[in-house]
């Protein structure tokens, strides 16, 4: 990680942060429910060009013909798509005057995560006195990027300022016909991120939605597009470890990545949406379509995810390995506790010659939760000399939870090698006793053992993310043993 980035993060995290850099916009909602008028309303609110409205409408019409997938190993309660408000104009959050007004449970979690007081205030919506003007931080950040010709902005801004790129690439990796939730997102997406790395540029900072203007208002139908031109490199971080609550239960995001010749994109996610209470009440439904295409030869896309939140997770970050010698990677830790359900994994589609993919999946189930790995490795006829290595491990805490593995392997040529390994294990009483005998209590011991178990994945995360993710894993499993 470059020193630019360190400077910015220092400035950002050591200083105080002025909350609320949105101008005060009056809140406007779309009428409840979904029809063509809703789609037109959203597009009009955002002053979108005709091509985008057209795209949304096509997606909407297609969505009408589709049904929710029934193949995941999930029990999804019926969702009333006509009972949802699909668009609310950016709204200034209610500011609280001090941390005393914040939910104490939330504060406790912040403390355990080691999030600074100022940061806590920001995350929970408390007004903070300005010492360092947030605008100046953002400006430093933007200047660093601009110097390299990197574009990093909200999706809406990209539509305004770079419509050609949006038009060319949006839907090129995840077409709206792809699946039910992708179609829904394509019809009603509110905002998201856009990122363009020019030819030969190595992005000197970790791009994080944290720094992005208007990041607070991405909404429930988020749309992200990352374009990495020839020979470029970018590391992109999404999400944060602090527990995120949202009154919207349904989330359906789409992320598309395009990597040209010799380009590398590293995409890291920490997902910690509200998982519901101990009895399985409430919680976010997270239905995400993430896919990248290694378009040029020698390109590489790596997905790393730490999934601890949401009541239901349905998510398969995938790679289309089109370019010869291209590489796809998927590193995942998925934790489910209490009544959480996760069906997550990846698809590696080998199309080019000498393409390589690696899948490391670590599922951790506790409580009465259900955790499934679902993966597809397809090696097409032309993808000669290709390789895949998959390792899918499940760790069970307790005996009321479930872990399942659904690996699908299709190989259409003889010169390629596909390897799949799977293990299921438990935290043994011996391991716990050993830790306890060294003075470590059960909860810390579980945290330690689970972090050790997930190490291969965690070490793929950018440093500052990894430390927080480690704490998060321990916290997510509190009370699951003993």
């Amino acid at each position, binding site marked *: 990680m470059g020193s630019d980035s360190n400077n910015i993060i220092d400035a950002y995290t050591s200083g105080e942060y002025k909350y609320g850099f949105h101008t005060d916009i009056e809140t406007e909602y779309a009428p409840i429910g979904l029809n063509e008028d809703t789609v037109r309303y959203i597009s009009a609110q955002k002053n979108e060009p005709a091509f985008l409205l057209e795209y949304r409408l096509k997606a909407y019409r297609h969505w009408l013909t589709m049904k929710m997938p029934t193949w995941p190993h999930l029990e999804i309660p019926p969702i009333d798509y006509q009972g949802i408000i699909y668009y609310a104009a950016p709204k200034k959050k209610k500011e609280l005057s001090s941390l005393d007004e914040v939910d104490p449970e939330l504060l406790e979690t912040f403390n355990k995560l080691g999030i600074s007081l100022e940061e806590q205030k920001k995350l929970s919506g408390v007004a903070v006195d300005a010492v360092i003007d947030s605008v100046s931080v953002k400006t430093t950040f933007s200047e660093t990027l601009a110097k390299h010709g990197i574009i990093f902005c909200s999706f809406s801004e990209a539509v305004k300022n770079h419509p050609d790129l949006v038009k060319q690439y949006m839907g090129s990796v995840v077409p709206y016909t792809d699946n039910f939730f992708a179609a829904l997102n394509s019809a009603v997406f509110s905002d998201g991120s856009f990122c363009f790395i020019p030819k030969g540029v190595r992005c000197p900072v970790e791009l994080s939605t944290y720094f992005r203007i208007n990041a607070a208002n991405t909404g429930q139908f988020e749309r992200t597009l990352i374009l990495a031109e020839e020979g470029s490199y970018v590391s992109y971080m999404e999400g944060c470890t602090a527990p995120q609550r949202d009154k919207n239960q349904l989330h359906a995001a789409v992320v598309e990545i395009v990597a040209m010749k010799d380009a590398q994109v590293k995409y890291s996610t920490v997902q910690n949406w509200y998982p519901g209470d101990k009895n399985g009440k409430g919680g976010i439904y997270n239905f995400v379509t993430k896919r990248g295409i290694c378009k040029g030869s020698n390109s590489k896309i790596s997905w790393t995810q730490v999934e601890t939140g949401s009541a239901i997770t349905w998510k398969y970050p995938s790679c289309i390995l089109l370019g010869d010698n291209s590489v796809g990677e998927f590193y995942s830790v998925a934790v489910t506790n209490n009544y959480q359900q996760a069906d997550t994994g990846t698809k590696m589609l080998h199309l080019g010659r000498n393409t390589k993919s690696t899948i490391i999946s670590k599922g951790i189930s506790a409580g009465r939760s259900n955790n499934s790995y679902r993966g597809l490795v397809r090696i097409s006829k032309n993808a000669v000399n290709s390789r895949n290595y998959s390792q899918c491990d499940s760790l069970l805490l307790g005996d009321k939870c479930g872990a399942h593995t659904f690996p699908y392997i299709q190989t259409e040529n003889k010169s390629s090698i596909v390897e799949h390994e799977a293990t299921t294990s438990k935290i043994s009483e011996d391991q716990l006793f050993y830790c306890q*005998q*060294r003075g*470590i209590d059960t909860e810390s011991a579980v945290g330690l053992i689970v972090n050790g178990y997930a190490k291969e994945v965690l070490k793929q995360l950018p440093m500052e993310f990894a430390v927080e993710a480690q704490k998060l894993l321990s916290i997510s499993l509190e009370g699951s043993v003993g």
Partner: protein
Amino acid sequence: MLLKITNLHASIKGKEILKGINLVVNKGEVHAIMGPNGTGKSTLASVIAGRDVFDVTEGEVLYNAKNLLTLSVEERAREGIFLGFQYPVEIPGVSITNFMRTAVNEIRKYRGLDPMGAGEFLKMMEEKKKLVEITSNLTNRSVNEGFSGGEKKRNEIFQMAMLEPTLAILDETDSGLDIDALRVVANGVNKLRTSENGFVVITHYQRLLDYIIPDFVHVLFEGRIVKSGGKELAMELEEKGYDWIKQQL
């Protein structure tokens, strides 16, 4: 008095293993416990450490005049009890450094101290590594994962050195060690020995007791301590075997 065990009975799954143990360990003393396989030596160690698969059905254990039996495993550890395991457990992905840092800081927290800073901690690690003559990068590796038998035992002594216990119970730490390692382990123990702490050393071999000179030797047989004596008892045992004990009963 550091440890006082009176008429201790313990069973597992309804089967009685310890059948009335009496033992007193004073500060500054080293006690050796010997005895045939399966007589309850490790069980005694586990019960002192608080492992809950064993049910204590009768008797009393006092540690520093406190009732030990009401404390949890980790509380006992934080009170200064250390168990060197006969079969150390593997914890994949957790480095010894991280493991020890967690342990040291949990114990410090219990004692009302601030966590040890990274620099100070690493310095302490280096010192203790020297004490048990660990020169390799063993401490960067995952706890016991892929360790040889001897490395596992050396690691136990290293951890003991790090945690500076008041009462250390070493369960066959000498088994599987080559002569050099045996000397290293014994030296480690001798250097840690003070007038303030006590050791209970479980072993099958008189050989270890040439290096760690015990104040008392006990013979554990079928759940009871049937004979106690000075270090010459170990010699006698080595010479005459356990049949000699059986005949005396």
